[in-house]
């Protein structure tokens, strides 16, 4: 393969394989900004994935798939919200259980459907054609970056748009400001007349819905082939990590996705990169792939430590009341 081709494919892979991380991260940022630490990203994405895929295929429409993935994700969010916001359950435990539960549903539904008739993606033109790459005029003609960044399927662009929209929403709108207030100090927010419960419910559900779409993307990207390992395969946990890396900023999450994506795509492209550039990158082939797999977690651990050492309030986007339930009568 020629060098340009290899590089193009590498950039293309970085984007193609890792956009689900962006969905998961942006969704989780929205949830965490309301002061709730939801560790159920993995499960929520799995639920969104399986139902989005099945309903999308049955309706033969990508739009229906996206919508149902969002809806089922939001439903997971609703479970989380009822338990932690209304019923004061511990957030860590509820989130972890949501992960177990969601993965359970994923396998249960997939398995029982497979016993009858599993919908094959290519039989449903509405889904498979909707998921085809879209060449953006002019931009996609740029060498390397053109194909790498501007010839993707619609869900890639949607993910970027959602990330930017959430950034705008959090930082430039009144409702976003109120949401951040709820995450920082719910009692103070309550005292100025913000309905804390409603804000939390709303944003947990929307955030989890966004995660669900990310799960759906993941399923489509694997052509909907259902086997023993889950489509999500740990991406939900990386998303939890990426939130910290992005410092709770959805726009930075795009950058973070590509940084993490770089390491995720490396094992896929390492051998072809090493062949195309034997002098500069020949050593890439020698690095064990497990190190690449562990890198997102190692980087996040370091970022986590670094932010806590710096620990200047104000510079960190960590919501002050993250993980704490708000009980009005204790105000």
């Amino acid at each position, binding site marked *: 393969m020629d060098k340009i081709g290899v590089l193009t494919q590498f950039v293309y892979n970085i984007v193609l394989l890792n956009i689900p991380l962006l969905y998961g991260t942006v969704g989780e940022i929205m949830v965490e900004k309301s002061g709730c630490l939801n560790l159920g990203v993995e499960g929520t994405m799995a639920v969104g994935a399986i139902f989005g895929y099945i309903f999308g295929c049955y309706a033969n429409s990508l739009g229906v798939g996206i919508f149902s993935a969002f809806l089922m994700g939001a439903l997971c969010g609703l479970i989380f919200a009822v338990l932690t916001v209304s*019923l004061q*359950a511990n957030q860590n435990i509820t989130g972890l*259980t949501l992960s177990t539960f969601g993965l359970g549903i994923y396998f249960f539904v997939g398995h029982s459907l497979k016993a009858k008739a599993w919908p094959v993606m290519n039989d449903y033109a509405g889904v498979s054609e909707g998921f085809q790459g879209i060449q953006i005029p002019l931009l996609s003609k740029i060498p390397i970056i053109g194909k790498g960044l501007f010839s993707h399927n619609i869900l890639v662009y949607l993910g970027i748009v959602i990330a930017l929209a959430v950034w705008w929403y959090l930082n430039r709108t009144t409702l976003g400001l109120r949401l951040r207030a709820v995450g920082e100090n719910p009692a103070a927010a309550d005292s100025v007349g913000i309905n804390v419960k409603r804000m939390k419910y709303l944003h947990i559900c929307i955030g989890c819905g966004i995660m669900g779409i990310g799960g759906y993307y993941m399923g489509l990207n694997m052509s909907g082939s259902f086997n023993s390992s889950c489509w999500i395969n740990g991406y939900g946990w990386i998303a939890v990590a990426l939130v910290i890396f992005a410092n709770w900023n959805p726009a930075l999450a795009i950058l973070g996705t590509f940084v993490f994506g770089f390491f995720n795509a490396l094992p896929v492209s390492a051998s072809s990169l090493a062949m195309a550039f034997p002098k500069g990158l020949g050593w890439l082939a020698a690095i064990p792939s497990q190190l690449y*797999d562990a890198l997102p977690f190692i980087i996040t651990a370091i970022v*986590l430590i670094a932010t806590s050492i710096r620990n200047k309030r104000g510079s960190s986007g960590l919501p002050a009341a993250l993980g704490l339930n708000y009980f009005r009568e204790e105000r």
Partner: protein
Amino acid sequence: MGFHIVKRDNCPLWQKCCLYIGAVLLAVVIGGIVLLSIGVNPIKYYTRMFTMGMIGNRIAHVTFMNYLKKLVPLVITSIALSLAFKMRFWNIGGEGQFIMGAIASGFVALKWGNVLPMWLSLIIMCVAAMLAAGLYGLIAAWFKVRFSTNETLMTLMLNYIALHFLMFLSERKEDWNFFLDETSARPKFASFSQFVKMPTIKIGAKFELNICVIIAVLVGVLVFLYLKYTKQGYEISVIGDSVGTASYAGMNVKRIILRTVFLSAALIGLAAACRVGTAGILSTSITEDVGWTGIIVAWLAKLNTGIIFLASALICVLQQGSEVAASSFSQVSSSFANMLQGLILFLVLAADFFTRFRIARAKKGEKNNG
């Protein structure tokens, strides 16, 4: 007419029992409806699941021995996690600590298993596993007390780092890597079951009781006594209630956190040593998710050491039973257990609420602000 929520001081025991049993039953009923919806007779399925297929089975004792093999690591891990949770230290790194313990005990078994006498290598395996897991747990604890790094996220990351390290060992075919089977061309873990194996005690004609079961019971009793009757156990509960109170009372909070997390992680290492010693081989799925399930169990049991035995026995029946049932109900995946487990905990968490709070009607003339 408005409603608002009021904290209640005490909830009678019978009410608590009713609420929790009701929650579990409701989860089972919901699971049954789900089964019906895919055309499976829930009563038949549940009968098979809850009896683990032991009725009318000539090798029921084997099923039960396998059940105990699964149960032991889960019980020890749950008890270990409850130690840290009591202190409100969110150790969700059970998986990672378990893996580190497993690697350490595998290391001992493969390196010295064929030279040392078996009892000695088993003891060294346990000690090495406890040390490795304990130190791995200490990483998160040290950063927590030094820089107040969030331990939930930190232990979560450490889980995956450990998992990929284990995968690295399982897939890297090199001269130095004695974890792998030399005779196999394809990388696969070497077995050491012929040198080291946890001893069993024969009871009756067929049943063999693994010594790990005794270890688990012993750990349970010791931890119960430790928490209830020792100064250190008392310190843990004070920190769990309020760090401020603890330091005002002159306790060295940092040291207590470090000590307790080390103990918690080391016990998880012991669970790993039991698992590895029984299996006689490492594997990338050696944890069988006990690090995650243990969290659910510990919470189901309200961190109560005695009830942990009950809760983990139940969860283990679900897991083992669903695997057995999967063979006769092909359309039901064995992950039905995970779903049911999640449902049970969701409903128990909801039941928790009603033991701690009650819903009161707003009095007449009072403005509704609930």
